[in-house]
Structures are given as structure tokens and as C-alpha cells.
């Protein structure tokens, strides 16, 4: 049950997952991180954002630009170790689970105050959990409480849609006990997501935080989300100047950990990518996210600091077995893999540090199987496999998305060009379809219209379930693995591994699953892992690039 809930179809990296994760500037995290010689005190950091934040209440946030701002103001019970996907304590100093993995006891940090001066304690933690669990009406929509629905399932008044969450008890001021309905490998790392940051109960009440309304075609959010975000983080909300497209945060002078060095962070919204680059070069901004890979070298030689994140994504060629019976034949899918010159593609089209993918997760995830060998480009073998399968005149409907770039897919058009060129050499012909990412592409992929499609995923956390579980955890997924008999087998193996409380055993199971996926099932062709980057002026120090895009500016300094 829990499995099907957590494995809701989060196949692709949403704009949101760019940043899916938590903020955890606990004191200990802060002290561990040396920002390189201390750095100068004071100053304003201006960061070029690609889009406007939707709101400032992380619980209702779904996209990267919104998370980026919230992350600086909020903290969760746990966070991620800077620069990794490993969970570490944050507002909780330690946590432990019962043997069955269903009861979790969190010991909280003391002396922590929210931005409004009220105290952070176990009651506040439980207030937040109960708030999330008790969302009503419009707030229950997928478009609003997306992260809760994806990770915790339903709400209190939705008995047909059970929740992973059972209860929260404040044993004493610094001990919170959370009970779950089932064990999952996802807990407690989901609590590191920015969405599950702890807000001030007083501010939540005062500013009517749950009052989400469906208005016409969309939703309107209450004052809390728009003007009064109140967390415990190193920065406080100052203002959002909509006319000038800037969001301003100021230092939290009462921060419980090491106080931020910067006086102020300004997020300046510059939607056009080349305009962000220009603004950086002109000195209008101090840094921006996701510089075009082709610009890295130029930016470096201009003296900018290109901070490359560890590659925590996978780009794959999706195969849907539903419409073309030939694609249900393993030989045909293998032929497609042999026909693609992935090495060449990575070298010519992807940024520095990109690697050919041997499986559907990067090597930093527990469950990665290092014994799987990289399949080399072999056109002859591809042709002979196609011949054996009697599929020499294969004609496929090949979809690629326009108007989008993704960290794993910097230029879909060029990647499509390279892949389709290779496949054509093996004698496969195409009916090429291009649609805008949000204007039909994803809908068609969901509805199994293409035979081949380009897609990928950026990890939310370091658990294997977040990768292969999301891809193949159902049989009616984007690949329609249910068409082949192994689809159901794979689904069950994944469910079993996710519910395994023992970590060593779990890892072993995932390694086996990965091997089977690549050698016996091959539901799609993993192509590459590419590292996304951030760029800063050389005098900006202390921002640690995170595989989860979980960068916090609390440790940053300028000058």
C-alpha cells in the first residue's frame, strides 16, 4: 500500500525536483562545513533565478525556484549532508526507529526560535505534521499538496486513500515520536525535503496558512504563503518586489546555529538564460543556476567559478511496448541499445563530467551494481539482432520534447538528432513527433502514444526506491512493462526490497534487481548521467554544490 503511494508516478524530474530536498542548517552541519577561510562578513548576494517563486510556504511548493527561496528560510527535522544525498540530523539532533521501522523517535535541538520569536519544540513539530495530515478541500489537490501526496499518501478525511503517516506525539518538549502505518526505505530521508520544513505554529494560525481556495482555473494561497513565511532558517523573508522581479531575504540575527555571513540575498528573476549570463558578466548578479554546458569553459576562462554538482540523474531513451509488438521482443530492445553510440553522444553533447549510464541510477545510490558492464556501441550486432527478431523494417513513433531543458537533457533537439541518427544507421525509420513539454509531450507519453521517447529523472534522495521504484514500481508505467511477463515480477521484487527494514539486505536486493533490469528485462535504454552546474563570481564562497540542488546560502560569503 505504502509502496503504491510513494511510488506515485513521479517518473520525470519535475521542475520541482530540481530542488527537492531539505534544508538543514543545523548547528552541527554548519560547523562541519568550513567555507574556506571564513569569508567576509556582510554584503548582498544577488542570485539570478530563472523563474518567479510561486509562494513561500514550502509545504505547497512544487517547483525548483520556489524551493530555492524557501530553503534559505526553513529547516526540517533532518537534512542532507552538504554536497551529498546522505541524510543527517538537522532540527532533530538524533533519531531512531523501532525494529519494525514503524515508530520513529526524534530528539530535537534546544534553544531554537522561529523568526517570529516563538519557540521550536516537539509540540511545534507535531503541529506541523498534524497540519499536513489535516489538509482539507482545495488544499488536498495534487496541484497543491503534491509532495505530501507523493510521499505520505492521503489525508485524515480521505479513508479511501490511506496515509503513511499515523500519528505524532510530543513526549516532552524535546522528544517527538512519529508513528507510521508501514515501513519504507524512504523514511526518514523524505523529511529532508524542503516541503516538510517546520513552520511556526503561531504564524501558521495567525496568517490562515491552510486557507487554499480553488479559484477558477487555479488556486489562491493565504497570507502565510504569500507574505509571512516563518521558519527557523538563517534568513528571513524581507520583500518580494513584483514590479522589479526581485525577492529579498535578510539575515536572521537570532539564528540558532552559525549566523549567516551575508546581510541579504536578492533573487533577481531573469527568465532568459542568455540574459542571466550577460547579467553575470556585467556584474548585475553574483551567480545563477544551470549555466548552459557549452558556456562552462567560457565562464571559467572569464574568471567565474563554475560549481559542478555531482551527477544525480539519469537520461534514458524510453521504450513503450504497448503499440508495437516488435518492441516487446528483448532482442529488438537490445538492438536499439547496441545501435546507439552512447560514448560519442556523451562526449559530443553532454557537459564535462557526464558519464555513460550502465543502469538506471548513478553510483552514489545504495543498490548501484558496479558489476554491470557498459554495453559498447556495436552496429553490426544491432543489425543482426534486428534480423533475428525479424524486425528489419522497424518503423517507430519517436517523440522528443521542445521548449525544455532538463539537467539530464541539456538540449533535447541535439540529443534527438544524435540518437535518431544512430538508429537510422541500423535501419530503423521513424515517424518523428515533437510537442512542447507541458503542451502535450508529457500527456502523450503518459497515454502511451509514442514508441520511443526521451526522458529522465533527477533523484529526490539517495534511496534506490526513488529511482527504479518510481520507474518500474507499477506495471502500467510509462514503459508499459506489464505487457511483458517480467513486468509483474519486477514490480513485486521492487515492493519487497522497499519494505525490507535491514539496509544491507535491501541494498543486495536492489543490486540484483538492477542486474536483471539491464540483462534480462531492458525496459528502456539508460543513456547518461550528466552533472548540472551553478556559476558564481569568484568572490562568492561557501556554496556547496549539491546533487539534490540543495544549496544553502547560509554558509556563503562575498568579497
Amino acid at each position, binding site marked *: 500500500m505504502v509502496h503504491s503511494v510513494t511510488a*506515485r*508516478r513521479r*517518473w*520525470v*524530474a*519535475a*521542475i520541482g525536483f530540481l530542488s527537492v530536498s531539505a534544508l538543514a542548517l543545523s548547528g552541527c552541519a554548519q560547523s562541519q562545513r568550513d567555507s574556506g577561510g571564513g569569508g567576509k562578513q556582510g554584503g548582498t548576494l*544577488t542570485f539570478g533565478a530563472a*523563474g*518567479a517563486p*510561486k*509562494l513561500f510556504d514550502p509545504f505547497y511548493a*512544487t*517547483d525548483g525556484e*520556489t524551493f530555492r527561496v524557501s530553503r534559505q528560510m526553513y529547516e526540517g527535522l533532518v537534512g542532507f549532508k552538504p554536497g551529498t544525498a546522505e541524510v543527517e540530523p538537522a532540527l532533530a539532533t538524533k533519531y531512531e526507529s523501532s525494529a519494525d521501522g514503524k515508530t520513529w523517535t526524534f530528539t530535537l535541538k534546544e534553544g531554537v526560535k522561529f523568526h517570529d520569536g516563538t519557540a521550536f519544540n516537539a509540540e511545534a513539530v507535531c503541529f506541523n505534521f498534524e497540519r499536513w495530515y489535516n489538509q482539507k478541500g*482545495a488544499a488536498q*489537490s*495534487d*496541484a497543491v499538496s*503534491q509532495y505530501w*501526496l507523493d510521499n505520505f499518501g492521503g489525508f485524515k478525511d480521505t479513508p479511501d486513500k490511506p496515509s503513511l503517516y499515523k500519528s505524532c506525539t510530543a513526549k516532552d518538549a524535546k522528544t517527538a515520536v512519529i508513528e507510521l502505518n508501514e515501513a519504507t526505505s524512504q523514511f526518514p530521508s523524505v523529511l529532508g525535503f524542503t516541503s516538510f520544513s517546520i513552520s511556526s505554529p503561531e504564524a501558521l494560525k495567525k496568517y490562515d496558512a491552510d486557507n487554499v481556495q*480553488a*479559484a*477558477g*482555473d*487555479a*488556486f*489562491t*494561497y493565504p497570507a502565510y504563503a504569500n507574505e509571512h513565511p516563518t521558519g527557523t532558517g538563517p534568513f528571513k523573508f524581507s520583500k518580494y*518586489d*513584483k*514590479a*522589479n*522581479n*526581485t525577492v*529579498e531575504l535578510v539575515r536572521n540575527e537570532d539564528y540558532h546555529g552559525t549566523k549567516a555571513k551575508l546581510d541579504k540575498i*536578492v533573487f*533577481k*528573476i*531573469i*527568465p*532568459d538564460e*542568455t*540574459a*542571466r549570463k*550577460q*547579467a553575470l*558578466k*556585467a556584474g*548585475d548578479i553574483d551567480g545563477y543556476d544551470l549555466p548552459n554546458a557549452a558556456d562552462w569553459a567560457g565562464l571559467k576562462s572569464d574568471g567565474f567559478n563554475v560549481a559542478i554538482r555531482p551527477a544525480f540523474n539519469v537520461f534514458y531513451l524510453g521504450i513503450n511496448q504497448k503499440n508495437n509488438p516488435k518492441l516487446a521482443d528483448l532482442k529488438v530492445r537490445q538492438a536499439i541499445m547496441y545501435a546507439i553510440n552512447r560514448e560519442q553522444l556523451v562526449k559530443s553533447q553532454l557537459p564535462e563530467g557526464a558519464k555513460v549510464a550502465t543502469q538506471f541510477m548513478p553510483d552514489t545510490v545504495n543498490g548501484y551494481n558496479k558489476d554491470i558492464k557498459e554495453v559498447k556501441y556495436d552496429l553490426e550486432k544491432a543489425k543482426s539482432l534486428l534480423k533475428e527478431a525479424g524486425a528489419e523494417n522497424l518503423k517507430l513513433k519517436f517523440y522528443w520534447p521542445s*521548449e525544455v531543458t532538463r539537467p539530464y537533457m541539456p538540449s533535447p533537439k541535439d540529443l534527438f538528432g544524435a540518437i535518431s541518427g544512430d538508429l537510422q544507421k541500423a535501419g530503423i525509420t521513424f515517424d518523428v513527433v515533437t510537442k*512542447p*513539454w*507541458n*503542451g*502535450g509531450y*508529457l*500527456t*502523450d507519453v*503518459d497515454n502511451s502514444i509514442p514508441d520511443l521517447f526521451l526522458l529522465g529523472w533527477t533523484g529526490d534522495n539517495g534511496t534506490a526506491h526513488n529511482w527504479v521504484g518510481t520507474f518500474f514500481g507499477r506495471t502500467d508505467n510509462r514503459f508499459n512493462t506489464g505487457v511483458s511477463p517480467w513486468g509483474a515480477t519486477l514490480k513485486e521484487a521492487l515492493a519487497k526490497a522497499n519494505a525490507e527494514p535491514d539496509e544491507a539486505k535491501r541494498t543486495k536486493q536492489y543490486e540484483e534487481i538492477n542486474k536483471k533490469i539491464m540483462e534480462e528485462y531492458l525496459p528502456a535504454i539508460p543513456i547518461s548521467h550528466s552533472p548540472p552546474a551553478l556559476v558564481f563570481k569568484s568572490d562568492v564562497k561557501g556554496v556547496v554544490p549539491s546533487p539534490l540542488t540543495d544549496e544553502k546560502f547560509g554558509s556563503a560569503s562575498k568579497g
Partner: protein
Amino acid sequence: MLRYTIRRLVQLVGVVLVLSLLLFAWLRLLPGGPVSALLGERATPESREALTKQLGLDQPIFIQYFKFLGRAATGDFGVSTGVQPGDSALDIFLQRFPATVELSFFAILIAIAVGVPLGYLSAKRRGSWFDNLSVVGSLIGVAVPVFFLAYVLKDVASSALGLPSSGRQDAIDATRVTGFFTLDGVITGEWDATFNALEHLILPAIALATIPFAVIFRITRAAVLDVLDEDFVRTAESKGLTAPVIRRRHVLRNAMLPVVTTIGLQTGALLSGAVLTEKVFSFAGVGEALAIGFERRDYPVLLLLIIMATIVYVVVNLLVDLSYALIDPRIRTR
């Protein structure tokens, strides 16, 4: 006069209603629509269905349209899903409209400052190499894609001249009064804010100016040619008036009429051009919102902004017609 104005305004209401219905239907018929925009790539068939019901999108389109009209009457035109997600479309328009007005104003100013003298000189020296060069030059202006020119300005001129190449203003402390950044600084006495905003305006305004420039140049030239031929100028010449006096008193004043009209009539072209220019310079105006709206398929914002652009376009045209009639009595009597 009054009847004419009323008739045009009634026509405008009709146009807006028809247009809004068409746009509304378009929005609803597109694959995905608002549900896709809200749920994005995480949509599941179940969540899609639930949200469709929740938003009332399963009702007949005319009922939805009347509901939309009802909300629109209260100023609720829906919420942005891509440009500034979560903001009301009307707020986005209101915030950004001054930016585009400011940009267009300076673009026209530049176009006049260059186009009128050039057109005048061209006409005076009709057939000379200067005239031919100017005419062909103005035609090249028409042939250059605006966004390409904007890129050239941004990449070459901004670094050469040290001008900012994006945004409306740096993140400086500026008080907002009217939303016109250059004007705000004047009102509050924050001259640095005005100056900063002006710096940001120069390059996009030059790029945008090429659109009205070509027309203003050609109209000025043609108008001056016409006027030079007319009897009263010849009379003035024969009266022995000196050249500058003739120029000032007769030629320019009479030639200005069609020029003024043309400037007003360039609104539509400016709005379209602003979409391209503002995108290149990340200038937070209505044009940029439209460009991002098209790119990210932000239907509520597109719906409102296209309607607003139409209203502005029609109203400006009406005003120009009216002022033309006021200035030139010959037309009123017709």
C-alpha cells in the same frame, strides 16, 4: 463625433467578447489545458480527473465561459501557471503594463528624434544620394528581425558601452509609486533610481525603436514632399520668407499631422515588437510575460494579456482618430 465614439466603443466591447470566447475555447480545447499546467509531469490519470472535477472543467464550455465572465467582472481573470506562478493574471498585467508603456514611449521618442529630422532632410534633398541611402536604410530596418538586432545590441553594445543588458532596474532600494520606474524616481526624489532605470531602458528602446522608425521616417518624408508641393509654401517662398521661417511655420507643422497619427498607430506593432525585445532583455513588461506565457503555455495570462493588448490597440487607434479630427477640421465636416 460623440455618436462615432460610442459606436466604436460598442464595437470594441463586441470584439473583446468574441475574442475572449475564442481564446477561452482555445484554452479549454488544448490538450492538457489548465489541469496539465497545474499538475505538470507528475499527473496521474486519477489526479487529472480529480482536479478536472474540482475546477469544474467537466461542465459544458458555455457554462464555464459564463462563469469565467462572472469572475472576470470582479477582476478575477485566473491565476498564472507559468509566468509568475500563483499570481493573479490581472496583477501581472497591472505590474507589467507600466514597463511596456515606458519602453514604448522611449522607443517612439528615439524613433522620432532620428526619423523626423532624417525624413525632413531626405525630402528636402529628394533624389540625392543622401535621400536614396536613407530610404534604403529605412527599408533595411524593416527587413531586420527585431530580436536579432536586439541580440546584436545586447552582446556587442552592452559590453562596449557598459550598459546593463537585462531587467528594468538593479536591486536598489527604490520606492514604488506609479510603476513607471523613471517617473517614480522623479516623484520621490530618488534620482539614482531614475538614472538606473533609464540605463536599463536604452538598449531595449533602441532595438524596439527600429519598428516605428522606418514608418515615421517614410511618412515624414512623404508628408514633407506633399507639403513642399502645396501652394502655401510656394506662396511663402514667393513672399520672400527665409528658409528657416518657412520650415518652422509651414512645412513642419503641416507635415507633423500625418506623422503624429502614424506614431499613434504604431501601438500594435510596438506591442508585438515588445514581445521579442523584452524577451531578449528580460525586461519585465507585458511583452516578456507574453513571450514566457507562450513558451510555458500559461493560458490564463495569455488570455488576459491578449485581450488587454487588443483593448489598448483599439483605444489608442480611437484616440488617434479623434485627435486627428480635432486637429484637422476638414475631417470633422466630412
